[in-house]
């Protein structure tokens, strides 16, 4: 073996003991950075945001330099990246906190008994309720689910069980993925164009919203159901075939029940995803201030459209309607979160028991 590399002795002399910053170094750096920035900011009269930004910069520079001096260049880079990662996480979460706080703060004042049980019919100059919008949202979303779930689930069954490797399945799978990116407004326009041609120009009704939302929902249902069906072990299918059970029955009685928890979770999440859509409903469902429970006739209110309308066109009592808009936003977020939690609960509830 030719000896081309640095002499071994040199390497052996390397110590494994490098000088290192104390474990709580990042904490010290953070405290110092925040304090310095606050001091600077208070003397110069900055707001919270500039102080925060400057504190972050101080922290990044300070910790990195400290490490550079005490430790070494590689450790400094490592610390810099670590700090960047945490800073970006903080930056990402600040708006979320701000948004939730604002919605709760502004919206809680609107909540009262009337808010959930009254509509806006004949309501002028005083706070009304959003019953009509809640019912509209629920009905339209229900319609979307009724359209999407069978199509989505059956298509997923095709992708996993029947089509599997066929060219058609590959295309469907690919286009379903592409379809997840359809802008919601385009879905609304599609429904509008469709019903303009079928029913008559300018038609606006609830079921149109259902169709538009299902364009957005189907790909989500297909994807999640497909994943869930794929998770069903091939063992189980084979066990069923080996008992002389035909394929379709195997799918209906063994595969789908086994995947049910995941499918329900996926569907619930899909509903949560579309229930807050505004743009398509604005176009195809219109708005009304009365309760309309007929999906097939007449304009239908929905929470997102109500929020949009009340905030942007509050009319002669802007304070009242804007507050109602925040209240409705709070309710909408609560519904979405409830759906997300429900998804988890249903997932647990329907998952196969192991019986311990």
């Amino acid at each position, binding site marked *: 073996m030719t000896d081309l590399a640095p002499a071994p002795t040199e390497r052996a002399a390397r110590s494994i003991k490098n000088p290192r910053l104390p474990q709580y170094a990042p904490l010290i750096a953070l405290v110092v950075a925040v304090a310095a920035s606050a001091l600077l900011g208070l003397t110069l009269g900055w707001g919270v945001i500039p102080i925060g930004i400057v504190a972050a910069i101080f922290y990044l520079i300070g910790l990195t330099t400290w490490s550079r001096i005490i430790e070494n260049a590689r450790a400094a880079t490592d610390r810099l990246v670590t700090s960047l990662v945490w800073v970006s996480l903080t930056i990402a979460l600040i708006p979320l906190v701000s948004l939730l706080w604002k919605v709760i703060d502004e919206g809680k004042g609107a909540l009262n008994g009337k808010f959930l049980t009254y509509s806006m019919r004949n309501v002028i100059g005083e706070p009304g309720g959003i019953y009509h919008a809640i019912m509209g949202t629920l009905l339209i979303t229900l319609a979307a689910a009724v359209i999407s779930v069978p199509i989505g689930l059956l298509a997923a069954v095709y992708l996993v069980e029947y089509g599997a490797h066929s060219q058609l399945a590959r295309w469907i799978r690919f286009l379903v993925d592409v379809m997840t990116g359809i802008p919601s407004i385009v879905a609304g326009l599609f429904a509008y164009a469709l019903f303009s041609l079928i029913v008559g120009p300018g038609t606006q009704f609830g079921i149109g919203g259902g169709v538009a939302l299902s364009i957005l929902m189907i790909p989500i249902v297909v994807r999640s159901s497909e994943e869930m069906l794929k998770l069903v072990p091939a*063992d189980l299918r084979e*066990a069923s075939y080996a008992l002389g059970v035909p394929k379709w029955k195997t799918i209906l009685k063994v595969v789908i029940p086994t995947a049910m928890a995941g499918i329900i979770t996926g569907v619930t999440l899909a509903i949560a995803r579309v229930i807050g859509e505004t743009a398509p409903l604005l176009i195809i469902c219109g708005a009304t201030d009365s309760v309309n429970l007929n999906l097939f006739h007449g304009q239908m209110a929905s929470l997102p459209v109500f929020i949009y309308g009340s905030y942007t066109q509050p009319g002669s009592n802007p304070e009242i309607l804007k507050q109602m808009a925040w209240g409705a936003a709070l309710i909408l977020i609560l519904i979405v979160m409830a759906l997300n939690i429900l998804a988890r609960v249903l997932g647990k509830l329907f998952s196969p028991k192991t019986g311990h």
Partner: protein
Amino acid sequence: MAKSIDVSDLNIYYGDFLAVEGVNMTITARSVTALIGPSGCGKSTFLRTLNRMHEVIPGARVEGKVLVDGQSLYDSAVDPVEVRRMVGMVFQRPNPFPTMSIYENVLAGLRLNNKKLSKSDADAVVEKALRGANLWNEVKDRLTKPGMGLSGGQQQRLCIARAIAVEPQILLMDEPCSALDPISTSAIEDLIHELKEQYTIVIVTHNMQQAARVSEDTAFFNLAGAGKPGRLVEMNPTKKIFSVPDEEATEAYISGRFG
């Protein structure tokens, strides 16, 4: 009700890949036949051609004949679903249906095939099958509990109960004990002993001792070389295979010199 199996000139393909070549074999009714051989030689593949489970895999197909009591399994008029009712199967990993109770698991084969069973008939079938699988005493008090709640060995016996509840004539087992601990394994081996009174049993095993313990006949499969198809090297009574095999390769394999 058990039946014998005659296999002649069977070639088994996965798409264009010839996995097993030219098998000729006769399996005696009411006896246990063991299939042994190194990994990848096609034991499972072959086993699955005996109840047409092979064709469940996309692109998989066979050439040649498999006769069960003279009836050809691969005749175009034969319904594979019917074949599978006649030839039951137990898999390497126990696979009870996770959404079903123990009771429903046993009945699954019947229920899913639209048999209308009265409650008392169903009870009778369940008890008979579970007794047949030596599981009755352990589970009779918790029939409505999920099948997944049982231990591995119990689950495997539940799968056997499920298979025999449809009253097949032949029972195929693909390494039924390889996922089990020694105690469960010996419970299953005892069970096989009892079952062969009524069923024709074909079992794949990696465990030479097990083959020796449970089977009357043993078939040794091997690969002729890397990338070549598997083939049946030798089939003989188990006693002979384990003492004076005809082929040198068999001897080498059994004595542990390769594999």
